[in-house]
């Protein structure tokens, strides 16, 4: 039988982009959060360079408030694939007095990550950071380029972006600038989940339904944990939940779910009437929340 490859167009495009990053830049790095999007990126990078190893390290900016399941998963993945992992801690940036811990009801270390990330970029002289952002996530991201040039301060100038024509990527930059590269720009949340299922990619257990101590606030389900600010009247209850997006504990809400397999999860996403960013507490701060964060160098 003729063994014929009919490409999945989105996968082929992503592999093309990842190879362009490796070819056009001297010191690329893959920003790894332990979430499903960055796990998908790792698989795509494996495919791009097989049978050689992925030719760049992973960088995890650890807020110190990550789900322990994510960290465990990260270490196992890095070990299995023989990847190089760099970890930089938000706690260090706090200890050095570069950023100040937020206080109160909605305090989170999510926006503090930016400083730690920019410091790591400078420390290692990374000229390209590969990220798992998708244009379907959020309105401001819908206008993001595949190669997005940032200045020395990591800032995004949305009115002055390079047009991207056909699949030609212009990664030429000056010393001090860097480029954020988004290989899965054109994927939707459902694309990612269907891909994880088709490829049978392992993901952290918190993406599947499990019992967890939580509390309710503003119609969302928050993790009850020492890192998450909780008022006395906010009662801790145990619920069957899972996470649709995995970030810092302080900004990621859970959803009620019975989905215990990838099949269940894909089914649930297909039927879902709430977007995944609907479970991101950080985006609810204002209509322009994401755009404002991006301008100052947030991923």
């Amino acid at each position: 039988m003729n063994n014929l490859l009919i490409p999945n167009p989105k996968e082929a495009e992503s592999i093309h982009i990842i190879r362009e990053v490796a070819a056009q830049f001297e010191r690329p790095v893959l920003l790894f959060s332990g979430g499903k999007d960055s796990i998908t990126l790792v698989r795509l990078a494996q495919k791009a360079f097989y049978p050689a190893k992925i030719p760049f390290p992973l960088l995890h900016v650890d807020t110190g408030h990550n789900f322990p399941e994510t960290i465990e998963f990260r270490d196992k993945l890095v070990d299995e694939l023989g990847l190089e992992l760099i970890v930089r801690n938000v706690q260090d940036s706090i200890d050095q007095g570069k950023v100040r811990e937020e206080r109160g009801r909605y305090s989170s270390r999510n926006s503090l990550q930016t400083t730690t990330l920019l410091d790591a970029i400078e420390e290692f002289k990374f000229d390209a950071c590969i990220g798992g952002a998708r244009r379907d996530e959020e309105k401001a991201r819908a206008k993001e380029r595949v190669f997005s040039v940032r200045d020395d301060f990591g800032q995004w100038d949305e009115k002055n972006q390079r047009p991207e024509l056909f699949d030609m990527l212009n990664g030429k930059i000056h010393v001090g600038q860097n480029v954020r590269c988004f290989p899965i720009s054109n994927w939707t949340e459902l694309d990612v989940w269907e891909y994880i299922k088709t490829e049978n990619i392992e993901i952290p257990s918190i993406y599947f339904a499990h019992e967890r101590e939580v509390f309710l606030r503003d119609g969302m389900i928050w993790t009850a944990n020492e890192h998450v600010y909780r008022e006395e009247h906010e009662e801790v209850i145990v619920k069957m939940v899972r996470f649709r997006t995995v970030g810092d504990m302080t900004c990621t809400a859970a959803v009620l779910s019975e989905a215990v397999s990838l099949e269940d999860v894909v089914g649930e996403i297909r039927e879902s009437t709430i977007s995944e960013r609907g479970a991101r507490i950080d985006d609810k701060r204002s209509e322009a929340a994401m755009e404002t964060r991006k301008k100052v160098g947030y991923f």
Partner: protein
Amino acid sequence: MSENRKLIKIATAGSVDDGKSTLIGRLLFDTKSLTTDKIEAIERSSKQRGYDYLDFSLATDGLVAEREQGITIDVAHIYFNTEKTNFIVADTPGHVEYTRNMVTGASTSQVAIILIDARKGVIEQTYRHFFISNLLRMSHVVVAINKMDLVNYDEEVFLNIKKDFDELVAKSDFSEDQITFIPVSALNGENIARKSEEMPWYIGNSLLDHLEVLEPEDLQESSVARFPVQYVIRPKTEAFHDFRGFSGKLYGGSLKVGDEVTLLPSMNTSSIKSIHFFDRELDEATPGSSITVTLNSEVDLSRGDMLVKSDAVPRSEKQISATICQVNSKGLRVGAKYILQHGVNRVLAKVDQIESKIHTDFSGSEEADQLKLNDIGKVKFRLSKPIHFDSYRENKSNGSFILIEEGEFDTVSVGFID
């Protein structure tokens, strides 16, 4: 992602108030692609603005400046799917000064939707949008005549606009079957995802049904195989000690194990030993595949070089002539030098001659000594090294390039080779 779903990429074009964002918002709403939190956000914002209807344009106009001005200023990408099809929409702004955005959006799309306000008919902007669709050789153009609700769903209005537009079609390279006219009301959802009962005189498909029946065959490009080398893979491990693979994306045609190939620029020949996609070894790869190939002889081949079948070799020249669209406010002048990026290959290019500036309303051309932002013109270049190309007409991927200026490294032009 589902491999049996086809992917259709659409660019939308229309003037400021033609209701383009509303049309896209409507497509999202009617295909249930808007989640409740997004619909709630639209309801909130609509109410704040004092509207008594849902303003679907709020779903797509992403940037703060756009929400303030109520217009779209940059290409936004929007995704939705039906049972059978994945859609990507490049929503491109309709302002005169933002023509470059339509070229950009159209370059990654197969289908163009051109919006016309039924009350205004074919206007200068329509000429430009159709001109660009023609220049970029879109597979299909859908002319959506919108705001039919404001002209009492009158067939006469529709037919008159169609007649005017047909005069443009006659001046273009399109054949009639590549153009489809659909009367719609985006605001009310008439002929968007469902057939309108208000316009029984219209016998065609709704917009969504039409987009779904477009066949992927129509959307493919050239049958000639072009394989630009992106990256050379040398694992240097025990198991793959002598492995030397050439990675890239296959444009057009197919590659099979055993194919006789010619390598450019060396003009050396070899044959394909193996084709790899991750841990799979294949006999054959089809267009659009991101693969790795190995060859049966030790050859010199690196990034920017090209592998082609020996029976269909492209042109290799140091002097090229192309249609240029200026996508940056820095103008293009005779004598200026640029980095020319053709696929993944970069050479230096010098502008030899600006032959003409082309009127984007199909009315011919004029002499010009420079091309400014949004100008389209015929330009001759001299290159530091030959590139291996086809005309854009024959092969879109291998017939296009971008120009990068050497100061800020901005992408300033896109070229379509004659």
